[in-house]
């Protein structure tokens, strides 16, 4: 059913919420020059508002309604108990500027979570401040910069980023004032070690690396890659977007990473919220800890928790201490699963992805045919021969009741379909998804128009994105 805009549902005089009368004497009003004349907000009754948003919600696909294998986004089930604990008034109704004696429980949670994330990554220290993965990346790159400058190495201006990297990596490096140089990949999907070695030099600040990479593959030369960067005086930044694949199976610190972010809304099950909020804590080695943005939580000798700014902090990257209620959920998740549970997360995520890859590799081209980790990247190159593109396959999956995978990323794979099932899906779901993908592959050969015209099951057909960008209409005014 088509749902009108709030502005169209408005009628003068309707009110959704009533507030108490003023219970103090009225003060003199401000001079008119400070006051607004009209407040052009919609006017709706409460039931209007409720129906409007419930109806809108029904137009979404979500993890709680369908399989959502959006590659690189780790769309795992979000445990409901985590929502309940995040709503406890002792967490949600606490002001960030309250005296520290009155928030010891909140500070303890921050402190413990810092320690857990450091343990999971095999690194020494954590700042929970960054609001999302991209902000974590910027933070990490600023720390690398501060470190080089402190050592009189401010001339190190170049950052290497593999061509398979998320777009946030080069963008974050540029925001940290770095010059970005792309590194290629070899025929097996790993970083091209020869090219990497050629790119070393006295102006190297570091390398940003995702491992497993965005092809869903574990970088087999990881130790050599990190060694090469370190020998050249650079540092290695880790994009933790794909940490889900190696939880409890490898620690990035052991592999050679110096500083990295984690996406708590991916690996640690906090809800994606239609695009956020996430949280992008940063973990680092000892020698980088003084540069972490603060404040961070510390425990004094007497067991009291306080907030402290690290000595050489790169500053702060936002107000207060991070997306606290997201941190509460991640904390609850880690406590629920324990060490063995976290290891099983990685195991099952990897089994599911390899199972999908195995079942699909007759009908679809697997981009790099070797064992994958938590996700598999397919190419629609065979289907393209019939005029069916990755985009069409994605849209056709909607008609089969699945959220599409990530498409056209990584950029180095032609007609990419990036499928990440996660550990919270069953073999039954994998089988149903495989059946749909195989059916679509047949349709692509036999009736390409059927796939090209998808979706047909949704209220709206394909949206005209070209007109949207050419003649932007961005508000109802």
């Amino acid at each position, binding site marked *: 059913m088509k749902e009108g805009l709030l*502005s169209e549902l*408005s009628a003068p005089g309707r009110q959704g*919420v009533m*507030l108490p009368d*003023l*219970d*103090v004497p009225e*003060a003199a009003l*401000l001079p008119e020059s400070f006051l*607004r004349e009209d407040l052009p907000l919609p006017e709706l009754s409460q039931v209007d508002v*409720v129906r*409007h948003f419930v109806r809108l919600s029904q137009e979404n*696909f*979500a993890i*709680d309604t369908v399989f*959502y294998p959006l590659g690189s986004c780790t769309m795992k089930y979000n445990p409901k108990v985590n929502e309940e604990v995040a709503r406890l008034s*002792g*967490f949600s109704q*606490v002001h960030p500027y309250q*005296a520290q004696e009155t*928030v010891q429980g909140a500070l303890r*949670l921050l402190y413990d979570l810092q320690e857990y994330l450091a343990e999971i990554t*095999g690194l020494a220290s954590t700042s929970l401040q960054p*609001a999302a993965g991209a*902000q974590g*990346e910027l933070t990490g790159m*600023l720390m690398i910069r501060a470190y080089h400058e402190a050592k009189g190495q401010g001339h190190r201006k170049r950052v290497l980023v593999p061509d398979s990297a*998320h*777009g*946030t990596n080069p963008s974050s490096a540029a925001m940290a*004032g770095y010059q970005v140089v792309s590194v290629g990949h070899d025929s097996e999907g790993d970083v091209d070690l020869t090219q990497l070695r050629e790119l070393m030099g006295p102006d190297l600040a570091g390398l940003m690396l995702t491992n497993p990479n965005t092809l869903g593959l574990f970088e087999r030369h*990881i*130790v050599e890659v990190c060694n090469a960067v370190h020998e050249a005086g650079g540092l290695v930044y880790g994009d933790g977007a794909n940490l889900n694949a190696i939880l409890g199976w*490898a*620690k990035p610190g052991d592999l050679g990473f110096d500083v990295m972010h984690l996406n708590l809304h991916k690996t640690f099950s906090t809800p994606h919220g239609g695009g*956020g909020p996430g949280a992008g804590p940063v973990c680092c080695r000892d020698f980088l800890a003084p540069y972490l*943005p603060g404040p961070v939580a510390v425990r004094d000798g007497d067991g009291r928790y306080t907030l402290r700014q690290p000595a050489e902090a790169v*500053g702060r*990257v936002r*107000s*207060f201490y991070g997306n606290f209620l997201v941190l509460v959920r991640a904390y*609850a998740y880690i406590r*629920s699963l324990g*060490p063995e549970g976290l290891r*099983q997360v990685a195991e*099952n995520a990897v089994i599911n992805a390899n199972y999908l890859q195995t079942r699909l590799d007759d009908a679809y081209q697997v981009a790099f045919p070797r*064992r994958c980790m938590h996700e598999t990247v397919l190419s629609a190159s065979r289907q393209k021969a019939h005029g069916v593109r990755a985009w069409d396959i994605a*849209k056709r999956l*909607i008609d089969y009741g699945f*959220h*599409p995978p990530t498409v056209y990323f990584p950029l180095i794979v032609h007609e990419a379909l990036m499928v990440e099932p996660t550990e919270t899906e*069953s073999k039954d779901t994998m089988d149903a998804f495989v059946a749909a993908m195989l059916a679509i592959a047949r349709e692509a050969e036999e009736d390409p128009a059927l796939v090209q015209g998808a979706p047909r099951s*949704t*209220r709206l057909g394909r*949206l005209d994105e070209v007109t*949207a*960008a050419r003649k932007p*209409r*961005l*508000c109802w005014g």
Partner: protein
Amino acid sequence: MTYVPNTQADRESMLEAIGVGSVEELFHDIPSDLRQPALHLPPALTEMELVAQLRAMAETNADLDHNACFLGGGAYHHFVPSLVGQLVSRQEFYTAYTPYQAEVSQGTLQAMFEFQSLICDLTGMDVANASHYDGAAALAEAALMAVRITGRERIAVASAIHPEYRTTLQTYARPLGLTVETAPAMPPGDLSDYACLIVQQPDFFGRLQQMGGLADLVHQAGALLVASVDPISLGLLKPPGDYGVDIVIGEGQPLGLPVSFGGPYLGLFACRQAHIRQMPGRIVGETVDSRGERGYTLTLQAREQHIRRERATSNICTNQALAALTATVYLAAMGRQGLRQVARLCYHKAHYAADRISALPGFSLAFNAPFYKEFAVRCPLAPAELNRRLLERRMIGGLDISDLVEGGWLVCVTEMNTRQQIDSLVDALAEVTR
């Protein structure tokens, strides 16, 4: 607890289909000496145990359900109608991600279009994005945007912007070789070398400044005017679009989000039509589908990191979508009358409190300036000590700003403070300073 549905039998049959004898074989690309390290974490908990432990932790915090709150400074305790939490908790919103696939994301997309529209209505600006992390990060991004537009590398900041916002701005500015300088109070001096002037209305101390003519001075110098605003105050105050602001940012937390020990919050970001292609962040636009029906989609993506990589307007990807949805539901529920009423209640109650407190011996208002819902008081007792004494009476006192204003205490009053609470505060202040 486990959330893995596969049984042992499922796993075995899947491993067989894959063609491996064990799970370990799937992890062989990890160097063997680094594989399966010890993980020193506390043992797993069942849901019952987890809730009990977290409840105990939460209960050691003093919360605003059990203590009257007079604390603000960038995080505000406002009323949140019940329907806000209920609607935002719809799992179809909650457990979706960025609406890359428009046909199965119309709920999120239309709500974001409505969010952008409501922020435009509130601020008087032409366009808004679909959210930023928080007010401080939004302010930093607004400055970078002004730098891109003007090609200038100096940023002027009014002295009374939130100190954490200024620190955040410096973090973002420093690596790009940009300088952040404090502008003199009105008139702001010669800005012909500056990308922008950043002001906050009401400022960090709650004061309101006359904005008439400021935009003209800034624009004559070829700079942009950036304003940081409190969205609740805009139920009463002149929208920044009316006094010539080019980029408006703000902390959207007061629009239906609990104070939450500092996050998640909501960065508001709006600008003039002319500058949309330099705006950071996701934007939703209206369009039509293949049959000509109205629909919504992410748009102007050529600005963004996933397309433009190191040349993007910002690295932002994940934003605060659910917080933006919260603000949308809040504004829809409050509506024109409700928001006006909230804004009015804050104003009058804050002035009642200010009158009564400043009449106490030893207390005085720190500034002789119009204010909105916060005001700075000079106290006869150290503010930290004052707050300790108030806490014994189940009151969370104002912000200690004695590092900025001698004996300074920043008091915030909202619609949540009843007359009885304000009178009790005044009585308590009289008692502890007697």
